């Protein structure tokens, strides 16, 4: 039988006692979610986690826009992450329906729905599965308006997909593919850090007259809880947000990683007396170059962090632009703390992800440069 609980020795799988550190360390999350302060700016609020805030946004959309339809794999019963719970019962099976297992078909179909004038909200079950649809997104959706001289467009298409590491996802349930799409003019790519942000940004994506990809950090679906307005509200796209002002270093991230760098900012203040400016980029494409450059002009140091692999990751784009615009303001080389250039690992995830220690270490090197 297996012994359980902390202690210096623990029965291993094969029944022999093996040394085991107190408690299963790899089950702890690498971040602490920091909710935004409650606000009554948009009316009555309700406690919601990330998937509930998505459901709320979709509910608002289906109720206000009679052409809106939601489709994807398993969305009818509520979705594998429960983002569409209750919508089919409320709005009918003509408006919330399952597709077969065919991502290329889902997106192609979505483009058609949007071109015909309806609001199409397509769900790709995991961002890792978006690649069969890559051609449709890049060659069809992104170029429709341009190639038809604005006669047609699929601006009312929004593609939603769960994104990012989740602790146990391994190669095909953890990817952050935003960099692939950042290279494609004609679409928008948006990644929220919290339920409050998610609802406002998703509604903006649906309203936006361009096809949008909305990546939802799956590790936050249940872990992130905030007071979110019940009525619709819109957070503008392509506007980064300064979460904390500072004077010495600019930290930029998006999605789950925002919470990691917030903690790094606190660590830097406490241990090094360094004041960090923390920016949530929110929209990857088109990104808010002005906000980031303005901050770097002030601080002179920039650290960008994302889970996706280093080479060709979106940090490289930010880095490139910032050195062009703010070259003489820089006090140190721009630091990128990212995943390694390997497939997303199974057992090695805790070593792979750019946790707060890696970020802190990079920050220290920048300060001491």
């Amino acid at each position: 039988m297996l012994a359980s609980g902390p202690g210096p020795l623990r029965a291993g799988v094969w029944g022999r006692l093996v040394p085991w550190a107190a408690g299963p360390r790899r089950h702890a999350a690498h971040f602490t979610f920091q909710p935004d302060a409650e606000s009554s700016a948009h009316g009555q609020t309700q406690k919601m986690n990330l998937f509930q805030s998505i459901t709320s946004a979709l509910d608002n959309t289906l109720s206000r826009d009679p052409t809106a339809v939601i489709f994807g794999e398993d969305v009818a019963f509520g979705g594998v992450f429960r983002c569409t719970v209750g919508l089919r019962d409320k709005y009918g099976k003509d408006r919330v329906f399952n597709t077969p297992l065919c991502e290329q078909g889902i997106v192609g179909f979505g483009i058609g729905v949007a071109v015909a004038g309806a609001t199409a909200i397509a769900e790709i079950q995991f961002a890792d599965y978006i690649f069969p649809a890559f051609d449709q997104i890049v060659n069809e959706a992104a170029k429709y308006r341009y190639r038809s001289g604005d006669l047609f467009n699929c601006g009312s298409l929004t593609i939603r997909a769960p994104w990012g590491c989740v602790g146990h996802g391994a190669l095909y349930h953890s990817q952050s593919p935003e960099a692939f799409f950042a290279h494609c003019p004609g679409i928008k790519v948006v990644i929220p850090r919290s339920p409050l942000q998610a609802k406002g940004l998703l509604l903006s994506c649906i309203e936006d007259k361009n096809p949008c990809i909305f990546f939802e950090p799956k590790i936050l679906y249940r872990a992130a809880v905030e007071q979110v307005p019940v009525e619709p509200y819109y957070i503008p796209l392509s506007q980064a947000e300064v979460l904390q002002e500072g004077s010495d270093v600019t930290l930029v991230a998006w999605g789950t990683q925002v919470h990691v760098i917030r903690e790094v900012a606190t660590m830097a203040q406490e241990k090094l007396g360094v004041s960090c400016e923390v920016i949530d980029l929110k929209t990857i494409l088109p990104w808010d170059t002005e906000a980031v450059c303005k901050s770097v002009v002030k601080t002179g140091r920039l650290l960008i962090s994302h889970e996706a692999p280093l080479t060709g990751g979106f940090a490289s784009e930010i880095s490139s632009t910032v050195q062009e615009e703010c070259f003489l303001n820089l006090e140190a080389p721009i630091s990128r703390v990212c995943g390694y250039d390997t497939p997303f690992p199974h057992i090695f995830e805790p070593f792979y992800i750019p946790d707060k220690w890696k970020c802190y270490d990079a920050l220290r090197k920048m300060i001491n440069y």
Partner: protein
Amino acid sequence: MRSPSLEEGPPVTAVLTREEGLHYYRTMQTIRRMELKSDQLYKQKIIRGFCHLYDGQEACCVGLEAAIKPTDHLITAYRAHGYAYTRGTSVREILAELTGRKGGCAKGKGGSMHMYAQNFYGGNGIVGAQVPLGAGIALACKYFGKDEICLTLYGDGAANQGQIFETYNMAALWKLPCIFICENNRYGMGTSVERAAASTDYYKRGDYIPGIRVDGMDILCVREATKFAAEHCRSGKGPMLMELQTYRYHGHSMSDPGIRYSKKDCVNLLYWLIYIQGLLSG
């Protein structure tokens, strides 16, 4: 059942020796026990990540292996523990892989979905992506001329992926020695086949590729059908398609609480067959 493009089907009778019967039974039981143990280990959080169990479908992997040679090739999707075993990986290596240890067949780096062995190309996470690969392996078999074939497996959910049809076309055009095998366990995750497919006659989906439908719960059916298909491929006639109608007892993965009830148990079926035939020693 066979598609109109086949003139004759596999034999309807089979010969089972005592050694074979006991060997198949032992293999199927091992897989069954291994999968049930994995279920337990997953619930104890000793196995983490994703875990797609094969119990219920043992007759498929054991039956297929019985009909081919170790030098033949096989590729499948993520419900691969059974195949990892029949293709030569030990139970220890499989469990070590599931628990992320370096003694695992992929050094703990792949986990449940990515197990590999000699002439066994995994263990593939992306639905349907392994099928074009299988055709490529079949092309290599034809090219090297060593009388080898490739068994390319996929599920009823994957059957709706575009790349499957692209592969059918290439395999038929170039007469590749490839047996396409659809393991139809009636559910793509939680979606029943009727809700996902305009045609649930998966054995006919290959259109110009001859296809047969096989009772995947009966190991002898699987074996004889595969022998027939293998002979077809080895003789240079081109690809074949087999639909194995089978059933899984667990949900899609350990994250799916789906409880399914099936009256047919392939392991029991074999047990009673060899018992009735008096093949068990006294």
